[in-house]
Structures are given as C-alpha cells and as structure tokens.
C-alpha cells in the first residue's frame, strides 16, 4: 500500500485528511511537527508528503530543505492558509510538487497526490 505522511500542527486537519486518504486506499501516517516527521521519515520514508507551511518550530520550508539535505526524494504537496506568490515560488524551488491553499479543495488535493504518486501507482499495478 502506498504511504502518505500528513504533517500539520492542527489536529482537525490531520484527522480529516487521514479519513479521506485512507478511503482512497492509502496508508496514512500523521505528524504534529516537522521534527517528528523527519525523524520517522529517515527510518521509513513515505511515498508522498502533505506538508503544512506554517507550523510552530520547524516550518514547511525548513522541512523541504531538510528532506533535500537528507537526500530523501519523496514528492511533497504543500498546504497553507497564507497563500502568497513569493512563498509559492520558494516552495516549488525547494522541491515541492504542488502548492495548495486552505481551506482545501479536496479535488485539487487528491489530484496533486495522485500526480505525485502516479509513477509509484503505475509500477505497483
């Protein structure tokens, strides 16, 4: 089963995305902070990451840069409640596969995840 990690400091967001993505046939793990996620990802990297941009402590940009520094190459979908063109460019430059605004349009989210996982889905089928 393909694995997706959801990193968001807001518990309701983690819960709602876990409900949706599990029904989409994905194995979902959730993390309340970037530091917790990086620790887990180093041992068992997921196939895709849904990453909140603004979190206390380590923010989404720092997580993206850390993934690159650790040579962890999973696809990342960034989600944020503070959408700005400059931040979008920064995220995409740091390796994000997609950049979505909150509140989330679930169609866009699933499409972004589907696109990110497409190579892995094709291989496993």
């Amino acid at each position: 089963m393909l694995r997706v990690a959801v990193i968001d400091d807001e518990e309701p967001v983690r819960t709602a995305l876990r409900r949706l993505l599990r029904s989409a046939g994905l194995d979902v793990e959730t993390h309340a902070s970037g530091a917790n996620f990086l620790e887990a990802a180093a041992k068992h990297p997921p196939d895709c990451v849904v990453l909140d941009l603004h979190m206390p402590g380590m923010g989404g940009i720092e997580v993206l840069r850390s993934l690159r520094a650790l040579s962890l190459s999973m696809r990342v979908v960034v989600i944020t409640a503070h959408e700005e063109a400059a931040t979008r460019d920064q995220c995409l430059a740091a390796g994000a596969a997609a950049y979505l605004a909150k509140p989330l349009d679930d169609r866009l989210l699933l499409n972004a995840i589907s696109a990110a996982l497409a190579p892995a889905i094709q291989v496993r089928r």
Partner: protein
Amino acid sequence: MRGLAVLLLLAGQAFAQAPAPAPEKKSPFVDPQDGKLDASEWLLDKKGFLPVPIIITEPAVGYGAGAALVFFRESIGEAAERSKASGRLTPPDLYGVVFAVTENGTKAGGAFGMVTFGEQNWRWRGGVARPNANLDFYGTSGSDSPQDAKLGYNLDGWISSQQVMRRLGESENFIGARWIWLDLDTRFDPVGAASALPPLQGTVRSSGVGPLFEHDSRDNIFTPSRGWKGYLEALFYSPDIGSDNKYEAYRAYAFGYVPLSKEFVLGGRIDGRAARGDVPFYQLPYIELRGIPVARYQDENAGVAEVELRWNVTPRWALVGFTGAGRAWGFTTTFKEADTVASWGAGFRYLVARRLGIYAGLDVAKGPEDTAIYIQVGSAWR
C-alpha cells in the same frame, strides 16, 4: 422500509387498474363507506408474494426506479387481529428482495426482512445490500470547504445491517443491539488535467456493534396523529470485530404528533448524530431534511429540527406544510459558529387506506440549492 411502504401502496394502485371484476362483485379498491378509491380491503387481505414498483426521488442520486418482490408471511389484517388480541401494535412479518437504478448511474440490490416473534416481545429487522452508488463529498474542511468544491466518488461493495430488539415488560419501550458491516470500495472521480492520472481508490471494511433503545407510542405506524417515537443508538467500530478503522457513531432522534383539532395535526422532529475517531468520510453525520440532498452537509456532528402541520381538508384529502433547519459542525466550527441550513415545503395527501389510516401523496421541498419532489406514503419521518 420507507421505500417498501411506497411500493405497497403503488402496487395497490396498479392492481386497481387490472380488469374489472364481475359487476355483482364488490371492488376491493372502493370503500363501501364513501364509495371512494381505497386500498384497505386489498391490503388487509393480501399475503404471499407481492411484486412492487419503486420510484426514487432523492436529489443526491437523481430520479430512479426499481422493483421489489415482497413475501408477506401473514396479511396486515391477520397482524391487526394478532395486535388486537394482545393489545400491542405490531407490523406484519415480511421478507423481500429489491433492485433499483437512478439517473446518475447509481444502482443497488438487496434482500431484507422484518419479523416479530416470542409472543411479540422480540423484533428482528435486517438487510443485506450490494450498492454501486455515485455520490459527492463536499469537503474535509466542513463548513469552511470552498463553495462548490464537491468531490465525486463511487462506493461499490456490500452493506449489512442486523438489529434485534426486546420489549421491556408490557411497555412500548424496546432495548436491543445492532450490527452494521460494510465492505466498500471507494473510487474518486478524477477532474480536469488529472483525468489522465490513475484514480485513487481503496477498500475499507467497517464493522460496528452497539446498543439501542426505541420507544414507539404512535397511534399508527404509517400516518400517526398522536404519540411519539424515540430512538437512541451507539455503534462502536473496532478491529476486534473486523473493522479496518476504530471509530464510534452515535444517533438520537425523536418525532411526535399532537392533534390540535379534528382537522389539524402538528408534528415535530429532532435528530442528532455524531461520529468520533477514524470514521470513513462517507459515514460522517449529515443533515437530513426534505429539500437537502443526502450527505450534502457533513461534519463530525449534525443536528436537525423540523415541524410539519397536516390539515385534513376533507375526510380523504389533506394538505401539509413543513419547515426545518439544521447545522453540521465540529471540524473547524463550534455549534454556535456553524451556518444554519434551512428548507421548507408543502404537499398533499390522499387517504388511500381508510381502515389502516394510511395517507399517500407528494411533497415539494425547497432547500438552499435544490427544489426536490418526494413521494410520500405515510409519514415523512420513519
């Protein structure tokens, strides 16, 4: 069972169009009291197999049609005699199979049963269905979800619901247990540029059991004019009983009827639902009101209040007016912060079975997005 009641009455009307009997024989579809169309006699005597047409008018899946084959172990008349002897109002025992399709491609087939046993102290209601439903999900963000950001999906699999209840003493109260089992494949519709991508799809198995309580003191199970029905249920889904996810679902509802005069009957209804834990999104509580598509407004909690007034204009014809409002909340909003969703409408009823007190008719309801039509047999509330 709502659809079944619809079917029974429609079958009665269909049968009424069969070739007329010999002139000297009384028609079973004419009430000797007033000479009007009436299915009482036919319904009271009917038992054995009964083919029944189905009409679906649910906005969430569009208009549809189907058929059921229902087996009555005893006639409604025999059940009524049994009830008279015991002083307890009991429905007839029946079993059936059903199949239906709708205009958006949804289809479902299944089998069901309803049996009273143990000196009318025990009741079993159960069913197994194979749905293939095309529905829309309006957002993980609850009421904060972007407008019109509906996510189309298909549910395909198996559903089973089994319920056993025991009467408490000589009262109209029952306690019991219910087991729900779902094994459903979810397939999300790709949109736009993503349509070339492989769709995300998965299978979730859910198994939940829990206690229930029911009170039913209505004077008629079809079209009540007095009394009330209340229901409490808590279902616990757990991997210990075959569920993939661990979650809980709660429901409490009550509706009642008060005759204001010989002509007017006032009804009221409240309905509350809640879910906690890793509940699949399609099982989240939703606002259920005429005029609002099923599952249009979902969140961790949903509450509804509704009133209906029936005006018996003549001994056969009645008019109804209704309005209701509800809120879905919990994800990002409290109850106070959640938007109120309201609907209202009107309809007419005809007393199709005088001796059974069954009215049938049509409702037109207006919600925030849609105007919907509902065929009603008996009360809109079950």
